């Protein structure tokens, strides 16, 4: 037996080649699996329980996938709904699915899998010794857990399979590992476990494992001894190099991938071209762990930010931009203290010079004199009102502050009015931990819905 998985793209919202999707459906897959999330765009999305991609983009792509599913008549699975995979984002995808079911006249059975964790449960699990840190160690205690806005656990193949086994046409899963939706069915059908997880890692970014990364769609056959992967877009190819290189991508260890319930080992894997576009991989191993653990992600508010932007074009200031920043920073600290009676710990003002070293900061090794320099001022304080008030206080000085006392008052370029922008809350990731479960569904909840019946 063999299990054919169609992966339309690396993430819902990024787009895919519609002809390639049609070719993928013609290939008669057993399941269509796509990921909807990542931590890659930062802690804001988990902190606010919101999607990075627009609703319109997600709906348009989901519509194409629901139509494709209607032809293929196989389960369509999306994992990590709405970037962060919180409960609200699963319900957001359910609402989109409900609208599309009506628009397209489809009767659908939908399973929703929820991954979000209650703060009290996390606290109890921590006290019970069921939550263990990964490297690098991020310290948490029962008190600091209270300040976390959202915690999700990353589901593995077991939870996705529980959702598929409800007989659902469509599975909307909360946060899961990038690979779980792709490996799940093959594992349930008893295909080679190492091959299933390795196939999933290679295809989790869609056609990134091929010569045409932006075309999106790839297919993979997983069987008892290995897997074969190929892209669906016209002219795209998988090569042993393009496939094996993807194991490195966004993975700290190129030989090992940790998943709930075990680890994938690919050091002995063998890659060979089957034909012009397809690569066969064998020799991947799955090492089951003693305990069943799931990774946790959490995000919380650590302050509020306001920003200002000015541009230095005057060559004298461009040349001396760093000295100017040192001088104005020193001046601003004194002004904030005297005008607002704030201590240094109550707020932070950071000035980054775009065109000088804004990307790399102290690590920057290049020096050159640019045409102009962007001055990005980041103000962080414990409330939005306070960060905005500090930004307003900075505004006139950012516009006019001279390099020395004995020179004409400069006026720099402000690109818009008002010069300040409130960024809202600043979030941080605050968990790098795994949680031990007695059985896979312990931290997850499953619901089914009949749409348009």
């Amino acid at each position, binding site marked *: 037996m063999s299990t054919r998985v169609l992966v339309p793209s690396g993430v819902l919202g990024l787009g895919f080649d519609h002809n390639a999707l049609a070719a993928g459906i013609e290939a008669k897959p057993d399941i269509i699996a796509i990921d909807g999330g990542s*931590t890659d765009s930062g802690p804001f999305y988990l902190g606010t329980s919101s999607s990075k991609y627009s609703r319109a983009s997600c709906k348009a792509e989901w519509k194409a996938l629901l139509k494709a599913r209607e032809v293929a008549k196989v389960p369509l699975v999306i994992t990590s709904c709405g970037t962060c995979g919180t409960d609200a984002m699963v319900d957001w995808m359910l609402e989109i699915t409900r609208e599309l079911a009506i628009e397209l006249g489809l009767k659908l059975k939908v399973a929703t899998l929820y991954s979000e964790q209650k703060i009290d449960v996390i606290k109890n699990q921590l006290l019970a010794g069921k939550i263990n840190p990964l490297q*690098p160690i991020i310290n948490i205690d029962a008190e600091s857990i209270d300040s976390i806005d959202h915690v999700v656990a990353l589901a593995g193949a077991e939870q996705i399979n529980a959702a598929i086994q409800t007989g659902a046409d469509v599975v909307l899963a909360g946060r899961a590992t990038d690979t779980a939706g792709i490996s799940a069915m093959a594992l349930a059908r008893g295909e080679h476990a190492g091959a299933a997880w390795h196939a999933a890692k290679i295809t989790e970014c869609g056609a990134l494992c091929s010569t045409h990364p932006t075309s999106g769609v790839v297919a993979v056959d997983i069987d008892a001894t290995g897997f074969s992967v190929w892209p669906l877009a016209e002219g795209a190819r998988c090569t042993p190099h393009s496939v094996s*290189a993807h194991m490195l991508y966004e993975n700290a*260890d190129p030989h090992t991938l940790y998943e709930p319930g075990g680890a994938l080992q690919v050091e002995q894997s063998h890659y060979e071209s089957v034909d012009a576009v397809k690569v066969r991989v064998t020799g991947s191993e799955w090492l089951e762990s003693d305990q069943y653990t799931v990774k946790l992600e959490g995000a919380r508010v650590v302050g509020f930010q306001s920003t200002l932007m000015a541009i230095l074009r005057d060559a004298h200031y461009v040349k001396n931009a760093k000295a100017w920043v040192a001088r104005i920073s020193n001046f601003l600290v004194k002004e904030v203290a005297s005008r607002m009676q704030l201590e240094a710990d109550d707020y932070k003002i950071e000035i980054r010079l775009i065109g000088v070293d*804004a*990307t790399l900061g102290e690590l920057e090794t290049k020096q050159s004199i640019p045409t102009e320099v962007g001055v990005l001022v980041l103000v962080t304080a414990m409330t939005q009102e306070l960060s905005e008030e500090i930004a307003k206080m900075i505004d006139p000085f950012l516009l006019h502050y001279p390099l020395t006392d004995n020179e004409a008052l400069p006026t720099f370029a402000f690109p818009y009015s008002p010069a300040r922008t409130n960024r809202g809350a600043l*979030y*941080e*990731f605050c968990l790098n931990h795994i949680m031990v479960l007695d059985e896979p569904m312990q931290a997850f909840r499953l619901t089914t819905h009949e749409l348009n019946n």
Partner: protein
Amino acid sequence: MATVSDRVANIRSKNAGPYWLTIDIFCGDTHVYQQMMQELSKELIASIYQVPLDTLKRFEIPSLNVIKFSFPRNTVQGARLDRDMHGAQMSVLLAEHKIDN
């Protein structure tokens, strides 16, 4: 004087989760791979990126002519002092590093 990027086929960096950065150096062929194995020590990477040696990992993947380094990020992704959310520009520091031959 040549730089690392003058010699190798491709260098890329990316977050590996919010707490780690990983850098992949695709050398292109065995000759360059052997050369880079000598040039690109853990000590060099620790010094360029100002990270501790004890948590810096180095992997050699001869089948791909790839050398890979992974280390905990100096600032957690998205923290107040983070400057590069995806960590994808960090590779330029190594790409522009000057080598003798």
